[in-house]
């Protein structure tokens, strides 16, 4: 048996005791371990927030970026080196507040990365303001008035934006979450996981006790099959996922809402447009110099840029 890879750095974790982020970290570590992803081929790209610190706790490559911008940083990294497994971690403020534009854009690209959202209903690291997932009129303890802005439904938004794998997990159901993360990593295309994450310090409404009461698993329902098994099914399954995402009976489903492996990924589309050399040959492994010299001698230059060359006619 191969030795297990240790994916945990030796840094002290400075999340509040009891924070849901511990559960998410544990699930990610376990997923990486079970999938045996090579650490140097793995990159955790995070935004800014309590959630964003996770990049430092995982012993792979970690890019702790800017608030709201983890997705575009991740995009550049993945496109330039498609051999990497790229996992984005962001808060709900990060991904659906300041970063909502990038969140939507990623969906329509179907680039093969995983987006894990730490959904705690608040802006944790700035001390508890309402996040875009906090329902209307909710008053968590830090707010001086009930929240006047409506809630974004992350699952609906992800589906509408075009993510081809959309799921919800719960921070304190580690095994279940780990399986979803594994499925998301293995999915070909943009995957989104909305993780319900209790914030013990600022969110006194959406607590672990609360979730314990209302959460149920989609896969325990008879007849629930979120997997597109034939490209023709895609729309029907998408609609079913949307319907499920909308239900507002007080209970909260976790599990996979939608999974469509048939949509072409962005990498495939690029490959097609670049004569199929990509992704084998890619920006970070292709040659740009030869012993410190550029690759263009007179001849190659003239052939390559012939459109700009005018020859003397007499």
């Amino acid at each position, binding site marked *: 048996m191969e030795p297990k890879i240790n994916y945990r750095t030796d*840094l002290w974790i400075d999340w509040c005791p009891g924070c849901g982020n511990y559960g998410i970290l544990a699930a990610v570590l376990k997923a990486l371990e079970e999938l045996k992803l090579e*650490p*140097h081929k793995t990159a955790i790209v995070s935004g*800014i927030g309590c959630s964003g*610190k996770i*990049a*430092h706790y995982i012993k*792979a*490559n*970690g*890019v*702790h*970026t*800017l608030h709201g911008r983890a*997705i*575009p*940083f*991740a*995009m*550049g*990294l993945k*496109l*330039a*080196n498609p051999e*990497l497994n790229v996992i984005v971690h962001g808060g709900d403020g990060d991904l659906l507040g300041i970063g909502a*534009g*990038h969140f*939507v*854009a990623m969906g329509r690209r179907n680039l093969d990365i995983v987006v894990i959202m730490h959904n705690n209903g608040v802006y944790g690291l700035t001390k508890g303001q309402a996040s875009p997932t906090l329902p209307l009129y909710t008053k968590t303890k830090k707010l001086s008035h009930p929240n006047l802005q409506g809630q974004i439904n992350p699952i609906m938004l992800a589906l509408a934006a075009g993510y081809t794998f959309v799921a919800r997990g719960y921070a304190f159901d580690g095994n279940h979450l780990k399986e979803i993360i594994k499925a998301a990593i293995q999915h070909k295309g943009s995957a989104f996981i909305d993780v319900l994450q209790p914030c013990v310090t600022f969110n006194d409404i959406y607590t672990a006790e609360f979730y314990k009461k209302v959460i149920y698993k989609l896969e325990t329902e008879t007849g629930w099959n979120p997997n597109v098994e034939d490209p023709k099914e895609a729309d029907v399954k998408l609609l079913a996922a949307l319907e499920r995402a909308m239900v507002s009976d007080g209970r909260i489903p976790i599990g996979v809402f939608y999974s469509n492996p048939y949509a072409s990924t962005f990498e495939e589309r*690029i490959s097609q*447009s*670049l004569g199929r*050399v*990509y992704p084998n*040959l890619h*920006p*970070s492994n*292709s040659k*740009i*110099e030869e012993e*410190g*010299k*550029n*690759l*263009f*001698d*007179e001849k*190659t*230059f*003239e*052939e*390559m*840029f012939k459109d*700009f*060359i*005018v*020859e*003397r*006619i*007499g």
Partner: protein
Amino acid sequence: MKEINVVIGGPQGSGIETSMSILSKISAGKGYWILAEREYYSNIVGRHSYIIARISSERQPRSLTLPVQILAAVDAETIFTHYNDIENGVVIYNKIDEKVRLDKIPSMEDLLKLRIMNELKGLGIDPSVSGLMEFMKRERGVEPLPIDFAQILGKLSESYRLDPRQLSRYVSTIVVSAITTLLGLDEGSMKIALSSHFRDREEIVEQNFAVFREVSKLLSEKRGILKLEEPKNTSKKMLVLTGNEAVAIGKIIGGLRYQSYYPITPAADESEILEKFGLQEVQGKIFGPILVMQTEDEISAIASAIGASLSGARSSTATSGPGFDLMVEAISWAGMNEVPVVITFYQRGGPSTGLPTRGGQSDLMAAIFSGHGEFARVVLASGDHEEAMYDAADAFNIAERFQVPVIHLLDKFLANTTASIPIPKLDEFKVDRGIRYKGTGDYKRFDLSSQISPRAFIGERGAFIWYTGDEHDERGHISEETENRIRMYNKRMEKIKLIEEEVPSWRKLNLTGSTSPDFIIIGWGSVKGVALEALEKIEARTGFKGTYANLRMLWPFPRKELKEITSKLAPEKIIVAEHSYGANIASLMATDIKVDEVASIVKYTGRPMMLKEFVEALELILSGKTSRVVLKDGA
């Protein structure tokens, strides 16, 4: 004649660009040098646009100048707009426009119409094309050359059974044909230029050539009345390209592998050119892939370019002012994380949306100082197409060697100017990837044991790499401890000194002109051409010898190098020239000279500085009549 200056005008969408391309190709094909700039409104179809060009048999023109000797007008608006821009030359125009009255031109801006109306009134001219042409013939030595466009197009339509709605596409050819006929250029070169421009579409080449023949026949009496001397150019080939194209080529040579962009004038063309070079097989070798990514906004453009850079790919983005503003937060991140990334920044008229399709140099301070906090960056500027190509390539070397973001400042003038330049000698161009990590095991991305920490790339075996915008320890993990803070901060900031020391002085500043000058002009970017030519003119005219200091690295500011020069001159003999209101480069020099006493030549209409006005401004300053001139020429 040794040179000829031309304005070709007409509504946007009427093929003016085609005229420019064809004229450039014919000229270069015949061995003439050409410089041609395109002016247009922020509009797709209908507003006035024009090309201003200078064709020379002597040498590569470095600047444009007014008045011109040929004004080719696709419509009446062009004639009204440019009647002051021509003297002692020929106006080519559509005969049918003679009846058009100024107040009946809807596409013309009211303010402009009013201004011209008042001028014409003042001169006692009837505000119609015919009235104006009469005046110009009488007073300005101008020869009207009306052409019946409809007749030519009618014939074409007949011969080739063309849909009448498509005929307007051939108008630009009428105009170029008239010009080449006046210049006495031969049919053969026209044919080759058309074939090159319309590439493979034989039928279209043929139809356009038919137009040329027809025009040529019609104007046979005028053939060669503006003939240029035999060209002195001896090279067999020339590159004929715009500034956007020069930069794109430079980036490819420099090893670009990831370019991100969000569409914006005048930067977008560069990325669209690069897209065509995504993957090339030349001489049996594969070049690329170059990924060109149209992102959802400029924030994503810079962020993804930084992300790509972390994997080791040479990466860049291209934008102009509004987009640059959105990038600065991430540039600060790149500064904090010592990421090599290139931002190509084409300046246009500001502030805000400003004059989005006109030029300017008013973003200097933003390029140098935007982005919160202190960090090292390099700002380069290029004075012409050759410099732009070189700098675009070299920017990556500087970025990787010093592990800093590099901002390459260009402008709309250069971007949209076509020039003929020699084919570059590239054997000399080195690719410097900076210090690379070679070890295994315990990698520290921000190793403090050397000023520049060796770089490993994400994805390389044996190195775990962490990056964070927070202050960090050597490994890249967050740290708020004060001693580490000071060491990391110093490491980043001391790069500025390192860059000052290690970048050779020719890369910072080039001097051209007298070695013991009476005055010096200090400028950067697109001022170069007009300043250099003005030096010659002014010396011929007044005997004053000047030097032009072309600043190519604006940050770290080459104080030491500049001081050596300026310290020898009285402040009033130091003239700063810039497309701005503030002559802002002066404030960067402030440390060493008394800025208040420096003279300046500025322009902020969004139009290029013209040689003639520039020389006149110089004369005013050198004669002590003023210390500040605001230039205004150009429609």
